[in-house]
């Protein structure tokens, strides 16, 4: 359950097909789009859309399998454009109908590194490795 500072948000479970319609309903009720989050699991993504009206927040939550296309809500809320492009970059999600599509190149371009999956596979992270890396470069320079 998602918490706000002071209270719990009302949460609506939805699916990828109904997402656009649900968002439209919220938009008609005077809500604004705040943020979309992605939680990555083994073979699916859990998407969370936050909407706000005054000091209340409403959450749309849906699960999509990896590789599935998700309808973009940027035609309704223009500000969803940046966050959806960011998710394309960082998680490899696919959005349908984005207003401006950077094609997964908002942060990183073709010849640059790819964002690692959230499981951090292929990233040199351990302390020991880092110190060895430093020593290696020192040797090369020296």
């Amino acid at each position, binding site marked *: 359950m998602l918490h706000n500072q002071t209270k719990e948000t009302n949460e609506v479970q939805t699916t990828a097909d109904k997402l656009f319609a649900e968002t439209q309903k919220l938009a008609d009720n005077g809500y604004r789009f705040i943020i979309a989050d992605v939680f990555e699991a083994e073979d699916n993504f859990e998407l969370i859309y936050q909407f706000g009206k005054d000091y209340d927040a409403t959450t749309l939550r849906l699960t999509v399998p990896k590789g599935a296309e998700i309808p973009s809500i940027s035609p309704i809320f223009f500000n969803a454009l940046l966050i959806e492009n960011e998710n394309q970059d960082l998680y490899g999600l696919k959005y349908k109908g984005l207003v401006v599509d950077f094609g997964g190149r908002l*942060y*990183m*371009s073709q*010849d*640059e*590194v790819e*964002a*690692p999956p959230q499981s951090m596979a292929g*990233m*040199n*992270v351990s302390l020991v490795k*880092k110190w060895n*890396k*430093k020593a290696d*470069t020192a040797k090369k320079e020296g």
Partner: protein
Amino acid sequence: MGLINNSRAKSPWVVHFDCGSCNGCDIEVLACLTPLYDIERFGILNIGNPKHADVLLVTGTVNPRNERVLRNVYEQIPEPKVVVAIGACACTGGVFADCYNVIQGVDKIIPVDVYVPGCAARPEAIIDGVVLGLQKFQEKVEKMNKKAVGN
């Protein structure tokens, strides 16, 4: 030629390039220009054009996208030149050294002459760093003069 190069060390112009710092070091570089620290009294002038500059101040972590911009700015500065890396991020990567989009230190991309530690580096340390860089700058000028005489 010698006279011009000698006078360059007396009034060095700096160009500041932010590679991707958290703004902490940037505002300290700017703070050096403002009345309380006022490095202009040493003849140090901050300018936007790398072709006018002698000293390059680099702040922040380098990532593959701004690496090209950094190299471009560096190559446009006429010889002799001095590079000052400001802050932990520019020296080694700082807290972000383990991030996937961070190159650990500016010195992996361009030669760095002076390292200013600190997170964020204090204005006093930045002034010290520029002054230290100028000593090296003087050496480079002398080397260039010798070369010119030799030819």
